[in-house]
């Protein structure tokens, strides 16, 4: 290929790209990158727990309560429904802004229910003698579930702000998508935690 034709084909491509909208908005791309780091954070914690568990002679540690996996299953379901409602809110938002309000509020309320239920569960686990320092099970349980809860709280706060913007009519689709990426991460990370920590 001669240098000239190389140059002209490039010029044509330049013309095509001019004024073309970006594929992913800044907010969504930034949040996806953040979530990528968070995935590795949880991967680090969960694999650390798996290693400690696999190398223990006796597991679970003696004289420690069982983790309440039945109740948490209900809570897991609540979190899934919350995630599904947010998908619904995003789809409806594309058609009409008002129609997105109910599922968004539903998603926030169920998310808050999940965190409060976790808090109640922690209180009962502490009462039964599972504390941060009572065993490695307790240490990892509070570390991993606590880190997840902090992410859930941050994401709910972000969704709440998104809802306020929606009420005021300022909300942009990409802002909703940015908050949603974080919430989908919180929802998506939970089954893995439930499987590796509770079961």
């Amino acid at each position, binding site marked *: 290929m001669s240098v000239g034709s190389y140059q002209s084909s490039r010029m044509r491509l330049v013309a095509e790209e001019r004024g073309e909208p970006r594929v*992913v908005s800044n907010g969504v791309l930034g949040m996806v990158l953040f979530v990528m780091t968070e995935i590795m954070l949880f991967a680090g914690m969960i694999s650390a727990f798996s*290693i*400690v568990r696999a190398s223990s002679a006796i597991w679970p540690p003696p004289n420690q309560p069982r983790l309440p996996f039945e109740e948490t299953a209900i809570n897991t379901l609540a979190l899934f429904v919350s995630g599904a409602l947010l998908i619904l809110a995003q789809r409806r938002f594309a058609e009409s802004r008002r129609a997105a309000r109910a599922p968004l509020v539903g998603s926030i309320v169920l998310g808050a229910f999940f965190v409060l239920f976790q808090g109640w569960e922690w209180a009962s686990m502490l009462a039964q003698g599972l504390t941060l320092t009572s065993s490695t099970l307790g240490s*990892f349980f509070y570390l991993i579930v606590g880190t997840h809860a902090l992410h859930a709280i941050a994401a709910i706060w972000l969704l709440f702000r998104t809802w306020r913007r929606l009420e005021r009519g300022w909300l942009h689709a990409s802002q909703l998508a940015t908050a949603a990426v974080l919430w989908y991460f919180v929802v998506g990370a939970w089954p893995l935690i439930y499987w590796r920590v509770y079961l």
Partner: protein
Amino acid sequence: MAETIHVGHAEEHGHHDHHEMSFLEKYVFPLDHKMIAMQYMFTGMFMALIGGFFAYAFRMQLAFPGMDVPFWGVVTPADYNALVTSHGSVMIFWVAMPVLIAAFGNYLIPLMIGADDMVFPKINRLSYQIFLISAIIIIASFFVEGGAFGGAWTAYPPLSTKAQYSLTPIGSTMWITAVALEFVAFLLGGINFITTAMNSRAPGMKMWDIPMVVWMIVIASILFMLSVGPLLAGGIMMIFDQQLGTAFFDPDRGGDPILWQHLFWFFGHPEVYVVLLPAVGIVAEVMTVFSRKKLFAYKTVLYTAIGTGVLSFTVWAHHQFIAGIDPRMANVFTVTTLLISVPIAEMMFVYIATLYGGKITLTTPMLWALAFVFEFLIGGITGIFLGASGNDIYMHDTYFVLAHFHYTFYPIAIIGTYAGFTFWFPKMFGKMMNDGLGKLHFWLTIIPFNLIFLPLFVLGASGQHRRIYDYTNFPELAQPWQQDLRQLATISLVVMLGAQVIFFYNVIKSWMSGPPAGKNPWNSGTLEWTATSPPPHGNWPEGLPTCYRGPYEYSHPDHDKDYWPQNEPA
């Protein structure tokens, strides 16, 4: 949040230009990417002086045991541990990272891709503020009860988690807190760099038109973000162990101390490439300009960098060959470690191919770039010896290892930085640096550098172990020839540190009274050289540039000038 496409952003900034910014807005809490870059650059250089001073203090102790070290006093064993630990931590986390990634990334990415600023300026400002707090914490840890943490920059437990072993109940927690905060700062910076490079490029700038240094900083940021999570998890666990009484890393109570090593090195090894890649990119920019040639095999370099990044996640356990890992695993990690030298060697060949047949001008930045290739090669080749687990079992924790990684990190963090700084100085400050002083500084840095670390290879091969406070307690390590080599290394270090005075004098003198640089003193083709020097707020107030071609169109046969700027229509 900056929910804008390229043009909208420009209008927003145009609006800002109308009001005069106060001193605080402009210099202390800036949103402008160039000012944040300067904050990172000068904080990093200040920390480099501190890290160099630490090295001076403990090297004096090794060369002249028990002496009253000028400006420090007698180095006690606790001092020695704290100095060694802080030297390593500061040089990697508070010098190499802020200068190579944060300072050059912030300065160059928007200018080289033709944007007016980062896409998230407020996150950018927050990034520096968190970084500054982390730097203050690490320095402050020297002044708390028990002193600064002394468990080496790798902070292996149980030494780092139990106060009765480390004797630094507060210092060790301050250390890990500062490191964790520093990671948060670079996480925020990395999000900015990648998003900006992907979404804010000048119209017409396609993937293959992005200057190599921008690509390298983007890839380094991705590597950083993928590797830092596990160490952040480990850091939180370590703080819990130190302060809340958990037993994540305590084998007596069901924990696992080797776990920390895995979490640390899973980050620690990619980290080498996180700082290496920006330096490689800087050297690529400098070499193309001063050999007036296109970068040899642009796409291959890019794919190689990505390949290096992927491989760098599979080599971490080569730091743990003597930690009791399964020998079969050691075999696997030996193979991956030796494999990673292939892409790095390829990059070195690309440099040599770029130089081949070029019109080479030996300016100060070019000297630094050539030195980078030369010195890094020594570091790379000695790494092959250490990557082989059979050999590493004998070499582990000797000065051979120490000299090896200084031959990698020094070219990256110091030589790479000087190459970039002297190259972009005219853009940053609008003045030319004095070339004679620059070359004097170059030779007075490079020669002592080799005289510090070449003797340490010899000492390491003779069995000199790291982390020993006073070799006179070990007769077989305190023979006269060994002590002579130690003194040679220490005296060279003092000469090298002294030579940095020339650099700072040159910077200040050139900044005050150097000849004006003009827009494009090096006749370079990339976009940053089309802005005025120094670029104003918004970079191109008259309108953002459009890109028409690749970044390295030097000596193009179809063009009358020997360079063809990216923004010039055909």
